[in-house]
């Protein structure tokens, strides 16, 4: 298990990096994890962020990263699978590695995750979000891996290597490095079928019998990450300090709601980090 740090930040967009910079300036130790490209990099032109007129989203994002890196912040690659509040600290599972911190800031941006019919009901009963976490339970059985992230083929290969009989379903062409033993289907999943456990999936064209479905997305939905997290519509409910209903857990940026704008994300990252830092100081004195 990693050492206890002050603040773990999930997401390295404008909100996450702003939180990291502000936590550091308050003398706190941070780890920051990211698993995807930020939406900002896709904005052709940004004109409403004070001090920067007529710049592309990518230029800004590069500058934000440069700023953070100049302060010694290292963005770590990894997807967060679970967060567990322990009262005075949190345990965070990043692709099977457990990290521990006093506070956590969620800054993963808006989740475009659309749950499939049957997914929520069968989560933990054949539906899994983490191949390295649950894979061993399906040795000698059939599993479907649904490719929705850039590293899904690696996890599919891992499953096959430990003795799971894998079928890989992807909208994209077959990945070059996908193991030859894995059956490849070009398509998607429309439904997960099963009463108490997963029995089959539907691709729209055919029904495939399977014992498990590994849904490998770029991110896990916030409510599946942490038990009991309160939402406000599709967004995470926060107070004016950007703290969620779970003490010590903060959220900042697009994930907390509209306006989905850069300047709001940056300021929320600051508010969350400064409040978290203040609480840590109070708790230690």
């Amino acid at each position, binding site marked *: *298990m990693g050492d206890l740090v002050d603040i773990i930040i999930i997401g390295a967009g404008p909100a996450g990096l702003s939180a990291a910079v502000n936590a550091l300036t308050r003398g706190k130790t941070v780890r920051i994890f990211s698993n995807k490209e930020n939406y900002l990099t896709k904005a052709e032109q940004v004109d409403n962020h004070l001090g920067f007129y007529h710049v592309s989203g990518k230029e800004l994002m590069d500058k934000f990263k440069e700023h953070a890196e100049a302060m010694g912040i290292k963005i770590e690659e990894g997807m967060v*699978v*679970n*967060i*567990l*509040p*322990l*009262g005075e600290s949190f*345990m965070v*599972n990043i692709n*099977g*590695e*457990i990290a521990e911190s006093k506070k956590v800031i969620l800054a993963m941006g808006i989740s475009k995750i659309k749950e499939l019919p049957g997914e929520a009901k069968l*989560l*933990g*009963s*054949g539906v*899994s979000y*983490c191949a*390295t*976490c*649950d894979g*061993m*339970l399906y040795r000698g059985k059939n599993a479907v891996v649904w490719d929705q992230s850039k590293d899904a083929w690696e996890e599919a290969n891992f499953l096959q290597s430990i003795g799971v009989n894998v079928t890989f379903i992807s909208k994209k062409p077959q990945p070059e490095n996908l193991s030859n033993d894995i059956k490849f289907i070009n398509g998607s999943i429309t439904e997960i079928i099963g009463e*108490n*456990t997963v029995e089959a999936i539907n691709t729209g064209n055919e029904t495939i019998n399977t014992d*498990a479905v590994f849904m490998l997305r770029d991110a896990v939905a916030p409510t599946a990450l942490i*038990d*009991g997290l309160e939402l406000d519509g599709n967004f995470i409910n926060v107070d004016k300090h950007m703290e969620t209903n779970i003490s010590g857990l903060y959220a900042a940026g697009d994930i907390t709601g509209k306006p989905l704008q850069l300047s709001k994300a940056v300021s929320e990252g600051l508010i969350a980090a400064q409040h978290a830092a203040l609480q840590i100081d109070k708790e230690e004195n």
Partner: protein
Amino acid sequence: MTEKIKIINNTQEFDDMIKQSRYVLVDFWATWCAPCRMVAPVIEKIADQYSGKINVAKVDVDEQQELAIRYGIQSIPTVIFFKEGRIASKEIGVKPMSSFARMIESNIA
């Protein structure tokens, strides 16, 4: 690890335990499972807090496959609360202390 947690070494031990004890909370886990390592300290706290009221046990699903199959364990950690030998409540995945406390409180007289 706290001595209040019983490590189950075979099916017989398990069957004896749920027969003899009125309330047993069982953590199904495995060494390779990261979420299980997150839940482990929470289960220890539960064992301390409810010491004398309930029994707490751990079952390694790799070593005790018979039990894993019997209870249909498909994702770990799975925590099952047994009351008089029967499943009273089940929690799958990483859950906070309050969830386990709730499953105990709502089932003990």
